[in-house]
């Protein structure tokens, strides 16, 4: 009996159980929750590593807890897209590490509730992991709710009024989207009588009844997940939420949580591509256009932000636009690029939020005007920030480059060169913001004494930031690894069932 499948159960359960126990261990000492959360994430990360290694060697595999086989039991399915758990664990682990000092700077209200903060963080990670590895539609929804609810709370954890407002907006939009997804799952269950994704796909294949409910379900799923992914025009909740949250949380939210929507879309696509029920050209076109608008709009708004975190939040919208556009292009290159960007963007955006978080922690300022000259005061943090920025723009050989290259290539492959342009000019806009930032950080005289006298971030913050920054470079140079890895998954996604 191989131990492999049990890792799959472990990876889902560990963070959830760890989350539940955090308030308990907090009774021992004020510092314990940090260590507890760290060790929980360490175990999870270990499990994730093992799983990723396995899929590297053996390809996709499933685990059925308790031996209940599909379609009756709950199936956990680990495919190439699920490998994103690797980055979820990495960023989650680093976020916990980062938080160990960062929580000190939280308002009084939150500081007393540090254990709950870690609970929420672990719940969030657990939810995401569960979401990516489940093979079951209902579980999909459940995990989505776990991560969403913990996400709303995390945004509000600071306790400031603005954070509460942002969290409320997030909650409102999130709830509507959850509802849509839930209804759609109900529809699909009604049509097919199963919740297992593979089974749903199989039963829809060659389905002979009325197609309208399936179409409605598709629509609701796409809208629901698009809201979670903050695709234009469903993005309105994102900038405030991500800007208001504490920086490590922003890193998790921006880097990982929005991806849940995208992964959800990939799952939905698998169902509908596989079943061959509908011609998805129109939907794809809509996605491409929405993606394009997200790219340009997000980048455009980013350029005019003075608040660094708000800029990063808008940049997330822009990057999600890339991913959605890549998916919509439905060409091999496009989807490969989009899939890898899910992974790479998580690294990059986490780098950026960590670096900005460290700067805010040290200086207490968060706008470009206030942060003038910080590059000279906090050289290492600023360098990490620059690496992240270069990467998000997509300059070779950083992580952001290859995905954009592939998505652009996908646009040409799909004979839609216009979107290749949109993509590259979107990057250009982001670049302009980066220049403004560099200008402010390096070439302007400091306006505040705190900024001029700031020191580099403490090790617990600097280390995660630098690790991620170097990963931005490494993943660029080793860019071929994820690309070749994801290729069979993409081929399977785009192929009709049995075809």
């Amino acid at each position, binding site marked *: 009996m191989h131990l492999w499948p049990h890792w799959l159960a472990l990876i889902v359960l560990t963070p959830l159980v760890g989350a539940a126990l955090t308030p308990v261990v907090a009774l021992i000492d004020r510092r314990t929750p940090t260590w507890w959360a760290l060790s929980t994430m360490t175990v999870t990360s270990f499990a994730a590593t093992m799983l990723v290694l396995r899929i590297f060697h053996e390809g996709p595999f499933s685990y059925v807890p308790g031996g209940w086989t599909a379609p009756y039991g709950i199936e956990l399915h680990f495919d190439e897209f699920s490998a994103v758990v690797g980055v979820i664990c990495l960023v989650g682990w680093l976020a916990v590490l980062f938080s160990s000092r960062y929580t000190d700077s939280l308002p009084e209200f939150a500081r007393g509730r540090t254990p709950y903060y870690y609970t929420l963080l672990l719940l969030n990670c657990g939810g995401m992991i569960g979401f990516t590895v489940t093979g079951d539609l209902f579980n999909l929804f459940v995990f989505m709710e776990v991560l969403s609810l913990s996400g709303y709370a995390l945004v509000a954890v600071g306790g400031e009024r603005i954070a509460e407002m942002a969290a409320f907006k997030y909650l409102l939009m999130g709830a509507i989207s959850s509802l849509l997804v839930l209804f759609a799952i109900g529809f699909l269950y009604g049509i097919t009588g199963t919740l297992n994704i593979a089974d749903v796909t199989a039963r829809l294949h060659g389905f002979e009844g009325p197609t309208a409910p399936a179409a409605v379900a598709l629509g609701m799923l796409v809208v629901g997940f698009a809201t979670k992914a903050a695709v234009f025009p469903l993005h309105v909740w994102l900038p405030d939420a991500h800007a208001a949250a504490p920086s490590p949380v922003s890193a998790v939210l921006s880097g990982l949580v929005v991806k849940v929507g995208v992964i959800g879309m990939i799952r939905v696509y698998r169902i509908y591509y596989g079943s061959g029920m509908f011609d998805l050209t129109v939907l794809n076109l809509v996605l491409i256009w929405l993606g394009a608008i997200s790219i340009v709009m997000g980048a455009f708004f980013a350029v005019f932000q003075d608040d660094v975190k708000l800029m990063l939040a808008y940049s997330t919208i822009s990057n999600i636009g890339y991913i959605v556009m890549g998916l919509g292009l439905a060409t091999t290159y496009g989807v490969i690029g989009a899939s890898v960007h899910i992974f790479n963007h998580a690294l990059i955006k986490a780098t950026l939020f960590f670096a900005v978080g460290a700067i805010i922690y040290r200086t207490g300022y968060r706008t470009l005007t206030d942060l003038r000259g910080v590059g000279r005061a906090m050289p290492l943090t600023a360098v990490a920030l620059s690496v992240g920025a270069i990467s998000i723009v997509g*300059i*070779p*050989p950083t992580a952001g480059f*290859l995905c954009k*290259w592939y998505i*652009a*290539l996908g646009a*040409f*492959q799909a004979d839609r*060169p216009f979107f*290749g*342009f949109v993509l*590259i*000019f979107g*990057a*250009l806009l982001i*670049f*302009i913001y980066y*220049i403004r930032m560099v*200008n402010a950080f*390096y*070439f*302007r005289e400091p306006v505040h004494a705190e900024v001029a006298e700031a020191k580099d971030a403490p090790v617990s913050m600097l280390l995660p930031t630098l690790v991620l920054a170097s990963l931005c470079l490494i993943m660029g*140079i080793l*860019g*071929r690894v994820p*690309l*070749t890895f994801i290729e069979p998954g993409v081929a399977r996604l785009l192929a009709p069932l049995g075809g």
Partner: protein
Amino acid sequence: MEVVDIRPLLAPAMSFACAGMVFLFGRKTHWRRFWMLSAATIKMLIVLSMLPGSLQGVVYTFDLVDFTGGIGLGFRADALGMFFALVSSSLWVATTVYAIGYMREDEKRVRFFGFFALCVSTTVGIAFAENLLTFFLFYEMLTICTYPLVIHYETPEALSAGRAYLTYTLIGGAFVLVGTVMVHDATGTISLGHPGILDAGIGTGRLGFIFGLLVIGFATKAALMPLHGWLPRAMVAPTPVSALLHAVAVVKAGAFGIVRTVYNVFGVDLLDGLGFTLPLAALAAFTIITASVIAIFQDDLKRRLAYSTISQISYIVLAASMLTPFAATAAIVHFANQALAKITMFFVAGAIQRTTGKTNVHELAGIGHQMPWTMGAFTVASLSFIGMPLFAGFITKWYISLGALESGQWWFLLVMITSSLLNAAYFLPIVYLAFFKPARGAAAPMKEARPTLLVPTLVCAIWVIALGTTSEVAGMPFSLAEAAVRFVFRM
């Protein structure tokens, strides 16, 4: 013959390392100077060490990263690249010495020299780029690294010039990237190691699109009209930077991109049948004439030089678009000819400004007696631009003219001649003022620029003559240009 060798990578890496050292340990003046000078010298030696092999037809290649699907980062020191690298690395030494003298009293020297080193590093990277992606990477890096140099004084004017510079060049860069993606989409490769990778089967429309993208992208940096707007404004930068921008790095990178596009991406055979180059040539001709005319009316010396640069760089574009061997020779050798003459002029402008504080042409009456060597160097460079025989510029003029006849486009010849005369019209008055017009008020005593400013100026001026007279001597880069032409035309 191709040889795998790390030196094409080492040359740009050398200045990278130097930049790092300057940033880290640059606070102490003597250490900073040590790093600057040693890196400049070592890099030049690395490039020079490849010269003998290169002259015998050896091509050094080094693949750094291979992403996947025919894209990666690679270096390749072919004859064309060697020519450009040789020019930029040797001029870097001169400019470094000059900049040390020029920036002696500046507060932000560390930053300045750090980015300065980065700029040249990226320029050599551009020269040795094996494929369009590597080219694009260094091309964008160059944009970024030059920016801090342009806004060095941090005045509102400088910042606004910096913004204009970035806007132009970044948009240009985006065009290049789209073009690169389209080339890859069309052929599956983006290598620059062949005399043309596209073929007519791709369809004229698409080829035209790619050509337009790449050329517009590169033309922004090459300051081809009407995309030249950033260049005169960028004159607010310190003079060594202007020299670097105008003579060595930035505009040349754009021109080099166009040359690579014409010769290595499309190939002369393909372009010959397509007729895309005629509009480009017309645009270049327009730029040559118009920029020269504008230059005549500039009183600020550096602005006059800037417009002259716009005009001169278009020589390269014009020559490249003629698609004949002689014209190609002209396009390549003009990299060196223009660079040396123009850098001399900027050095002179800077030396005058530092020594006497004068920046306008009309103030220069009688300065030739005050700074005879400096103005002598300026005269040499002027004569080169006018195309006086035995000066570097003549060689360009000669080959472009031959190329014009070869391509059957006689009107290019007229453009060349008119341009030479216009060059005379805006440079000779400066020489005239300096040497023959009595100074207003009491004649100032002879007071030359300090040696760190004067020596690089004179060295460059001597090279202008050397390039014009001894190109055939063994080891001179002219034969590299010939080798490049043979490769491009498959001779």
